[in-house]
Every structure is written in structure tokens, then in C-alpha cells.
């Protein structure tokens, strides 16, 4: 490439150089990169997981299947594959809160949550959540009763965890779609709770 790249940062130049070498050597199909980028920016994300949670809230039989074999139950909704090959759903309940981390890298259930946020992959969260989950939750504005038992799930193998948050009060009349809108990404990692009705 002969364009002037002087406006690029060092890392941008390095990525361009790498991509050029790999393309010239025939190791990559540039069109495949475009498909991959589009997939993870527009098709895979936490709205997938929110639909799983909402279905579990309204359909007790689905919830039962989800808790028994999450990989199969999630696949019923069309979500499967890379970084979600072996799924386990862990449900919050009164007195019990679940929170997920990967202290060793950034393992995260891509098919239902998309790619992880920066904080999930960063040292402050990874180092502290197993030792002091309540102080981490406080940084997300979440305070749980002292009597609530917290379980921290460290994703050290190829099993990926999806937290099923508690269904907010006063949502009996909401549609499944409206319920899904209450399910935040953070509530499915365990660093948040599902939104209360009427709040954004």
C-alpha cells in the first residue's frame, strides 16, 4: 500500500502491516474479515441473552430446560457456537446472587452476550471480584443485603456462565419483549440487577 499513513498511530500501522502480509501470503480472505467484524458488531450481543432470560421468566418449562442443559435450551432460541459451546445458567434468587469472572483471561459467553466490555477484561475487575465481590458491586451501584450469599464463578475452563437475574417486581403484565428490555448486560454477568419497571 502506497498511501501516506503518517496520521496513523503505531498500533494502527502495525495492524495494517500484519493484515497486508497475511493477505499477500494468502492466509486470509479479506471478505471473511468483513463478515467477522459485522457479525460481532451487529449480530451478536447482549440482546440475545436478554431474550433467553425473558423466556425463562415467562416459561417455567423453558426455565427448567435452561437450568438442566443451558447449551441446548439457548440453542432453541438460535444462539450457539463459538465461546458458548458449553453453557451453564445460574439463577439469582432471594438470598443468592451470582457473579461471573475470568480471572485468567476474558472468557465470556459470546453467543448470548457478545464481546465482553473493557472492564470485564481488565485487571481491576479480574483481580478483585473473587476476593471482594461486594466492593466491586458497589462500583456498579449495586448493594445487596448483608444476608445475601454471593457466588463468584471463575470461568477457568471452556464452560461459560450466564446469570439469570431475578424478575423485577410488578412485571406480571409485561410482554416477553418488554421484559427482555429490562435485562441489562451487567445483570447477566452479575454486576447488575434487572431494571425496575419504568426505569432506564
Amino acid at each position, binding site marked *: 500500500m502506497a498511501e501516506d499513513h503518517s496520521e496513523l498511530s503505531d498500533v494502527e500501522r502495525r495492524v495494517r502491516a500484519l493484515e497486508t502480509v*497475511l493477505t499477500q501470503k494468502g492466509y*486470509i480472505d479479506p471478505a471473511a474479515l468483513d463478515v467477522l467484524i459485522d457479525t460481532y458488531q451487529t449480530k451478536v450481543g447482549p440482546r440475545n441473552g436478554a431474550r433467553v432470560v425473558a423466556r425463562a421468566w415467562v416459561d417455567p418449562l423453558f426455565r427448567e430446560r435452561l437450568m438442566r442443559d443451558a447449551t441446548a435450551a439457548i440453542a432453541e432460541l438460535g444462539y450457539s457456537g463459538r465461546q458458548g*459451546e458449553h453453557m451453564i445458567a445460574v439463577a439469582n434468587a432471594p438470598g443468592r446472587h451470582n457473579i461471573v469472572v475470568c480471572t485468567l483471561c476474558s472468557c465470556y459467553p459470546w453467543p448470548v452476550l457478545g464481546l465482553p466490555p*473493557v472492564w470485564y477484561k481488565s485487571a481491576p475487575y479480574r483481580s478483585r471480584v473473587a476476593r471482594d465481590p461486594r466492593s466491586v458491586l458497589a462500583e456498579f451501584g449495586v448493594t445487596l443485603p448483608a444476608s445475601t450469599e454471593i457466588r463468584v464463578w471463575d470461568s*477457568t475452563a471452556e464452560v461459560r456462565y450466564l446469570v439469570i437475574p431475578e424478575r423485577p417486581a410488578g412485571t406480571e403484565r409485561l410482554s416477553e419483549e418488554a421484559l427482555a428490555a429490562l435485562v*441489562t448486560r451487567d445483570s447477566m454477568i452479575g454486576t447488575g440487577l434487572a431494571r425496575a419497571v419504568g426505569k432506564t
Partner: protein
Amino acid sequence: MPYVSHADIGGRSGFGPVVPEPEGAMFHATWEPRVHALTIALGATGSWNLDMTRSARETLPDYPNLTYYEVWLGGLEKLLIEKNLVTPDELTAGRARHTPAPIGRVLEADQVAAVLAKGAPTERAPAGPARFRLGQRVRTLATPADHHTRLPGYVRGKTGVIERVLGVHVFADVHAQGLGEDPQWLYTVVFEAAELWGSEAKPGHSVSVDAWQPYLEAA
């Protein structure tokens, strides 16, 4: 040279507060999704496996100073050079200078959806019964590994309880060294905070890890 992972930071202090970010934020520069896509595309060539990728990243000497996708970029360059797919002088020059090495396949655009949907399951058929049963107390290995491992330092030499039996899975420690899959029984083992953190333990929580059978002995 001893194996040093810079990624095993569970339980350490001094990294500052967690900085939450809104749900839509995924990438923070246009090169980041490109590095993510390159990593998947090159992984699909079959030149290495996921455990080798993690090993390459966690042993980058400057890991603590790198952003997340800089770690991915460094790990990818390192694997490409180790496997003789590219040379350092090609990366410096930004153009191919040597004959391409043979690779398993090139991921084509029309294969992407199917490849992602299939993923790479790690569960294998058991060759024998599980050694540990639900509810059994087990102790983890105390000595550090001299290779890639998925038993975090903070949980070494600790006693916990088998909570789930997860089936037989490709053993990351062996797989990362290019020595085959060596599938082993995998368990969820739960530890009380006091067991992990002693007198500094905060009340009201427990921590679980997923541990392969070779990490464990009966307690």
C-alpha cells in the same frame, strides 16, 4: 527459562477501581475489531489451538502494560512467527518477502457463519469413570505449573467441594503445549472465602473454579 504467566491476577490488589461502561461499547478504536477478526480467521487455519493462543498472550513480557487488543495483537504476531507463517522482517516491512507456509485452510467469507455457529466444543467421550463424586472434598495442587495452566494461583493448595461434574474435556495444560488433547474429567469446585483469603476474607461469599481432575486430590 521458567514459565511466567502475567495473566494470573485473581486476588491481587493495587489495580484501582473498576470502570463500568455502557452496554453498546465494544471496541474503542477501528483497529480493535480488525485484530479480533484476524485472530479468529487465523485460528481457523488450524495452525494452533485456543490454549496455545492463551499461552502466547499471557507470556507476553509487556502484558501488564498492554491494552486488551494489544495483547491479542502481540499474541497473534508471536504465534505467526513461532509457526513460521510470517517472519519478523515481513511484519516490519509490511509486505510478504517469503514463500507462504502451508496452512490447513483459509477461512472464506461464506464459511464464517457456519464456523462460528459450530464453535469448537471441548467435551469428549469418557475413557473411564470420574475419580471424584458430588459433594466430595478435594484439595488443589499446591505447586505452580511450569507451563500454561488454568488453575489460578489464588486457588492453589486449597480445599473445596465438588459441586458439579462437567464431563470429560480437552485438558488445557497439555493442549497448550502441543501435546494432544489428553481429555480429563472436569469439575466445578467451590471454595469458601475463608479458605481462599484467610483472616482477610470478606463475609458471605464463595468462589468456584472449573478444575480438571489432574489438578485435584482427595482431601
